[in-house]
């Protein structure tokens, strides 16, 4: 009598189950995505490669041990099922077998341990650093601050966000900290993750073999919009990097009078300047416009927008400034063409107006933020994230025109 919930007991049924399980196993092993941007198995730099070299044998050993254990259990389950055999001897174990089975895994683990030790210390080295970048996490974006390093043409500090731009083939050391809660910096293709902890400075080695763009994601839960705190590392060859530095050191020029962008500048000076700095921006009276985010934002910082259009993402690298096609063009380009395409920035044709406008219309609706004025009691009225500015469609048109000039 077999009911709907009965377990298959006939031989064919059992074979079917076994075949299904086998197929599932094969699907499992061949079931990886191709080109997942954050794949931990595709290192693109020496630090990540070191980890990869270490973990591949470990996974293999774990797999072999697993197969042996499952084979033993499977054999026992099949072989010793009750077929009316006499009650087995009531033996309490075989100490020699026990001890050897304790020592054997210990030896395997000790061997793994030696290589683990070596890699831990290799990855903690800082004395071979060729370039330093300060990285600061806050809810929910990353700020990059390049201290003066003349050998790379960085004659003034550069402050940027969203995309970390580094010279390829250069040993970069990130010095991480945070302005509010704990975040974690992770570009899987370049290295493992390292937490950015307020009040502490942690270092992380990064080096990319080839020019290209490498995706990452904040990996320490950091509150409401943790899911929308992404980042990308962009590696450029030496010349392209020098060009990028030069671009970043330039000041924003005011748009020509009478243009829509000029009106946008006025909107910016009226609203955005409270938090967002644009280097070189001047008020109508000619005085420099200085943002004061510490008065409005809990972390005391908002992304510097001077060269917004030189990076191709915004809002914690969660939305593209490039339209889909243009983005694909940049991300998918071979490494020798990549630098040129990246340095072109966001052109008029490629600007993803849709998302940018949506953002200006009501940022908290796109990315969850603590920006409801009625809920800011505990932070003393300061926002965590960008509030809804209540801009008119007119103002948004103007602002988009202005932002597009920030190359």
């Amino acid at each position: 009598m077999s009911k709907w919930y009965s377990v298959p007991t006939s031989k064919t049924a059992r074979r079917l189950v076994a075949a299904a399980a086998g197929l599932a196993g094969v699907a499992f092993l061949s079931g990886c995505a191709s080109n997942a941007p954050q794949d931990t198995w595709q290192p693109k730099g020496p630090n990540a490669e070191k980890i990869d070299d270490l973990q591949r044998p470990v996974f293999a050993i774990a797999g072999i041990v697993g197969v042996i254990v499952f084979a033993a259990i499977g054999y026992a389950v099949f072989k010793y099922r009750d077929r009316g055999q006499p009650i087995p001897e009531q033996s309490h174990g075989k100490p020699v077998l026990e001890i050897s089975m304790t020592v054997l895994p210990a030896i395997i683990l000790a061997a793994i341990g030696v290589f683990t030790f070596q890699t831990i210390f290799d990855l903690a080295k800082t004395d071979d650093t060729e370039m330093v970048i300060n990285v600061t996490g806050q809810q929910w974006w990353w700020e990059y601050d390049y201290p003066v390093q003349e050998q790379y043409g960085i004659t003034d500090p550069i402050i940027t966000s969203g995309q970390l731009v580094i010279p390829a083939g250069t040993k970069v050391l990130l010095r991480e900290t945070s302005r509010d809660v704990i975040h974690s910096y992770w570009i899987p293709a370049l290295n493992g993750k390292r937490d950015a902890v307020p009040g502490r400075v942690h270092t992380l080695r990064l080096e990319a073999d080839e020019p290209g763009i490498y995706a990452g994601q904040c990996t320490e839960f950091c509150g409401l919009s943790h899911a929308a705190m992404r980042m990308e590392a962009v590696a450029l060859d030496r010349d392209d990097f020098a060009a990028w530095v030069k671009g970043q050191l330039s000041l924003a020029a005011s748009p020509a009078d009478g243009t829509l962008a000029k009106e946008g500048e006025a909107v910016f000076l009226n609203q955005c300047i409270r938090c967002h700095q644009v280097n070189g921006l001047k008020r109508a009276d000619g005085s420099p416009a200085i943002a004061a985010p510490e008065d409005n934002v809990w972390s005391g910082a908002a992304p510097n927008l001077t060269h917004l259009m030189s990076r191709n993402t915004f809002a914690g690298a969660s939305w593209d400034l490039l339209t889909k096609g243009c983005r694909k063009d940049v991300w998918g380009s071979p490494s020798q063409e990549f630098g040129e395409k990246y340095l072109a920035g966001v052109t008029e044709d490629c600007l993803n107006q849709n998302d940018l406008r949506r953002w200006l219309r009501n940022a908290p609706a796109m990315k969850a933020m603590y920006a409801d004025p009625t809920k800011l009691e505990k932070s003393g009225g300061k926002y965590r994230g960008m509030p809804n500015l209540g801009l008119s469609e007119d103002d948004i048109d103007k602002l988009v025109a202005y932002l597009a000039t920030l190359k």
Partner: protein
Amino acid sequence: MAIIERPAPVGAPALPAPVTPTRTYGALRRPVATTGWKSWVFTVDHKKLGIMYGAVAMFFFIVGGIEAVLIRLQLAAPDNKVLTADVYNQMFTMHATTMVFLFVMPMAAAFANYFVPLQIGARDVAFPRINAFGFWTLVGGGIIVNLSWFLGGAADGGWFMYAPNSGPVFSPSNGVDFWALGLQITGIASLTGAVNLIVTVLNMRAPGMSLMKMPVFTWLQLVVQFLLLFAIPVITVALFLLSFQRSFGATFFDVSAGADPLLWQHLFWIFGHPEVYILVLPSFGIISEVLPVFSKKPLFGYPFVVFSGAAIGFVGWGVWAHHMFASGLGPVSVAVFSIATMAIAVPTGVKIINWTMTIWGGKLNFTAAMHFAIGLVVLFTIGGLSGVTHAVAPSDTQQTDTYYIVAHFHYVLFGGAIFGLFAGFYYWWPKVFGKQLNERLGKANFWLMVIGMNLTFGPMHMIGLQGQPRRMYIWTEARAGEGLFNLGFWNRVASIGSLILTVGVLLFLINVWKTARSKQVAPLDPWDARTLEWMTTSPPKEHNFDAIPTVRHLDEFFHRKYAQDSVTHEIKQVSTAEDIVRDQEANADKHIHMPSPSYWPIILASGLPVIALGVIYAIPVAIVGAVIVVLALFGWSLEPSTAPETDFDPPASEDGTKELAPLG
């Protein structure tokens, strides 16, 4: 005073004159109801408390399960909108909190409460009123933790509640306050339970039961109680710091006041890692009972299982920082904790080998309980091996906080802890309720859970290794890769798996319901078991054993039933469970002393949630709660262990079916 459910012996010899106080010290008379709700609410019987622990834990299992399904529904599609970011963050925080603190721990406590006294041949635990207090404290804590859902939002900082994200600015709702205070209260339950069970095991074993003749389940529960005894104070301190920071403006984790947020991480994980063993060792104990019974063989290498359990208990204290490999501890700390973590894999591996060797050469009977036990061995092995891959610290920096970790600990906790608990349900149900769960439904329950569990958590290995972080309320196509088997595909598979898992758990509930309605009574010894808890009626009488057995062997019950022929070495049955129990009844102990029910445990426990609410909303309320606690403590202390019959509510019945023997 004692109540035993045994006809008063006719013509019994005159009792010595009872020594009873002449007046009542307690403010309330003692309840004596043996039926109806009062017999449960005021009980101090370890078996009734065990059942209530189980029922409450099962309720929270369903709550935590619903939370899990909502999480998977949200993640079934990219940029999904089932839950908002805010609600999602509350959901995963509460899912973990509920499953860890309100399901697995209380369910393990349910098994410990019910079976440890029975397995060691005791009549109750050492401190029955404290036992009842622990249960009601758990209920109060569970209510406080979950009340936040209805009062402005639950805790949203993750179950690890890292500072400073748990501070008032970053988590402005009262959720974290409810969470911290609620867990503080359930911590009291764990701590009192631990003390109680340690004293019980060390002092109340039947004559002849040396520690090395003790059933493995009791052994591993003993290890767990020691872990609780030392781990709970650490989380207590951490939660106090957090509550003071949130409610009274303290600055323990405030960076601008010079604090280091890593303090919280150390405190949390010094508790949190032993906690992992607190969750899984009871289940190891359960299957170490189940596998031998259904293999008709003793546990292979009993001393190795016991000592590897104890070794895990010790080494478990030296591995907490492997949760912090990416926190920036510096290479020396990371290296040390990496090696220590590999070291703990050794005693864990010993257990897997011993379980495999237990069934090796046995006479295997594949009951539902046996299915779950073997399922545990297989699934836990997968979780253990993935654990070794992140003991390798550099590799862990790629894996930590991704779905690979989610996969790992669900194989360990679902495949390990929960499968063990289900093995326990099927194995011990006839003991507790006198009826057997339906075996066919049980096996269907098993297969659906195995398939659902592997479909849910198996793909998470790949999702994680291919870069999807945990605790994100949305995932996006942009980071999901290409091809049919991209991360989106596996996210959908995981969501479908969670629904299959849900059906599996529902089958269990249906099974419970069907069994409760069935009139079929279970045989006395349905599994041909090996340990003392089966050497009495099902369900056991209030006093457990008519005569306390004298123990001569490990697996005493088996040795009473079977003997080896000295010539042929054949093992033959020489006695049945019925014979043995009948023999006990015939030689019943006289004057069995059983603890009386009491009002005080629940009154004392009820004061604690009041204090918690007061701390959150208004201090005067907390004072009211404190007054309840202090008065209850006085009432409790003044309640005499022996008292005149007038001190009972209602007074003793005189129809002779109950004997009130004022002797202790």
